[in-house]
């Protein structure tokens, strides 16, 4: 049920907080324009690094922190398929079946969404009233795609952005090689995967790469820039919110 003005707890994500605040403000803008009341509860990280390293105790503590801070909202929205997937698909499994925390985790799970999925699937948004002069290609982030089914939602909205042309790359569904701690634990493998991704991006001739997860974006932007390729990298929310005045990921202030 959508209340007249749903109250959203914005899960900013730790990467956006540190590396790309614009993504958080883009999410805020999109949600407010769609008629939501948005708050930013106390938060640090969803706990995925601990969870995927096998440290369930720390993951559980951080999950409890998030559950406590966000359970009073109508919805939890994150500009990330990875973090939203952690809350939605993995939090319940951290707690004993039938325990109080399990029930609370399951309740939070049902109302947690990735941003573009929330805007389209829940709020029914069909039109992004912005323009973007550029040819973009879209990378499907693994968790958003396979855990949450985010595939058509960002593309539908991008299709309504004036001036924007979307050119699909080969293997848009194959991992970019970020993988959280994977990219520093196995840098050579990660480098190979992101190099393949970069080759597919280049083959499209697009001038902008978009995705819905900052981890992938930092990885791909870092590789493009190391290779000296002038393709702009942005989070899909920045384009949909029209907040593209700031330099693209990894670009210097005032310089292309």
């Amino acid at each position, binding site marked *: 049920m959508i209340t007249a003005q749903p109250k959203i707890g914005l899960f900013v994500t730790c990467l956006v907080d540190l590396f790309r605040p614009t993504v958080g*403000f883009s999410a805020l803008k999109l949600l407010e324009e769609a008629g939501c009341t948005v708050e930013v509860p106390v938060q640090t990280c969803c706990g995925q690094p601990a969870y*995927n390293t096998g440290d369930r105790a720390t993951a559980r503590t951080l999950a409890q922190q998030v559950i406590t801070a966000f359970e009073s909202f109508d919805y939890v929205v994150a500009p990330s398929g990875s973090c939203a997937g952690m809350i939605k698909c993995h939090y319940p499994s951290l707690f004993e079946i039938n325990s109080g925390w399990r029930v609370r985790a399951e309740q939070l799970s049902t109302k947690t969404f990735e941003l573009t999925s929330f805007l389209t699937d829940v709020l029914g948004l069909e039109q992004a009233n912005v323009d973007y002069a550029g040819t973009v290609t879209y990378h499907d982030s693994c968790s958003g795609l396979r855990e949450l089914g985010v595939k058509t939602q960002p593309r539908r909205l991008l299709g309504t952005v004036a001036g924007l042309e979307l050119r699909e790359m080969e293997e848009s569904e194959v991992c970019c090689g970020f993988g959280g701690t994977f990219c520093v634990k196995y840098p050579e493998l990660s480098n190979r995967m992101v190099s393949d991704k970069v080759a597919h991006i280049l083959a499209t001739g697009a001038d902008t790469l978009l995705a819905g997860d900052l981890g992938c974006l930092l990885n791909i932007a870092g590789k493009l820039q190391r290779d000296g390729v002038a393709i702009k990298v942005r989070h899909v929310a920045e384009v949909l919110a029209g907040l593209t005045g700031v330099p693209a990921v990894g670009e210097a202030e005032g310089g292309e």
Partner: protein
Amino acid sequence: MQATSLAFKRNAIAALNNPVLQKALNNIKIGFVRKRAAAVAKLPEFGLLRDAGRDLRNHVLDHLDFYLERFEAQVIESGGQVHWARDAAEANQIVLDICRSVNARLVTKGKSMVSEEIGLNDFLEANGIRPVETDLGEYIIQLRHEQPSHIIAPAVHLNREQVADAFQAHHAPYGFTERHEEPRALLDEARQVLRQQFLQADVGITGANFCVAETGSTVIVTNEGNGDLTQTLPRVHIALASIEKVVPTLEDVSLLLRLLARSATGQELSVYTTFSTGPRHPADVDGPEQFHVVLLDNGRSSMIGGEFQDMLRCIRCAACLNHCPVYSAIGGHAYGWVYPGPMGSVLTPQLIGIEVAGQLPNASTFCGRCEEVCPVQIPLPKLMRHWREREFERHLTPMPTRFGLGVWAFFAKRPKLYRRAASFAAWALRRLAGGAGRIKRLPLAKGWTAWRDLPAPPGRTFQQQWAARREQRP
């Protein structure tokens, strides 16, 4: 075989820098991934079949003892014998005893990963019996003294020239002195050499894709027909299978066959699907005098009821290998033991120990493509994560990872402190970038900056900006 899984990182880097291997690995995308996608697209009910496959395999695992005993009774009923092997050593000894009982000197073999798992070839050779692999890929790697690098395409890491070299080095005694590189010529040469082995072999050993409880039959699928010649021509047929391969009925086999071929090679059905039920009966035109089934446990029964039980659903189609970005980049040998790719990353720690194989379940981004294509929906990323949990509990996680995680967790559990630390990090990283927008070298993050720039934070954190905004508009 001696596992080199501990050296996974080194193996992987060597593989990435091996141009011949890299070229060969390209074939996987064309040969397997696209063909599977086309086969699945032609079958709208594939998703429902996957559900049914998962449910069937779960049912079997929940009643494994019942179906195994039923299978044994049916094998005996049809005139065959069943041998139970707790581990590799027992299985090898059983096979050797059977071979010795008929004074076997030459053994032909169909492709069997269980045989690789127990190291059967080395064991037979050490005991004076010559095993000859008859699957073309398996034959090639046997000549090269290599392990399979893929569970259904054992020689996928090789190119034509390497095959030609191997044949030239070994086929002179059979009258082949000319070097060929044409696939057809290579195939013909192998056929003629192998034909002589088929006719001379005393014992034929195959694996089993399925063991049918209803009939006591073993089932193999091949594309070369070598399996049929292996199991029908010699006097003795030994089928080697791990205990989880049992399936209740022939009807169930047909369900799994539909899933298997499409997932493996994009075929609707493999070229040969062969059912063996007992030894040659009086009315049969051919077949072995003796039919033996060796059922191997090797730690599998301890997986029943535990968090790794789902792994036993596996039907060895290799779709998870073919679709894994890590496997596709390095091939199978880097994994350092018998089973590579995502299924190997879950199974290997169970079979040889997490202390030895700990790297394998860690070398994954959890991208989830393996689970997405698995015909029996094994949650491979979840199972790899369970291994990481076991490592963490037993303090096997490498110290730098553990320490880094500890520091990060200290802050992440304290939001106020975390905000201050993040603000400091944003400031410091921005300073390091020096107005460039990105950092080229960061001493503590070499893993990142050796290969790519690190985009720098633009300045204040989201939380800092948000707090400032809240003050402006309370």
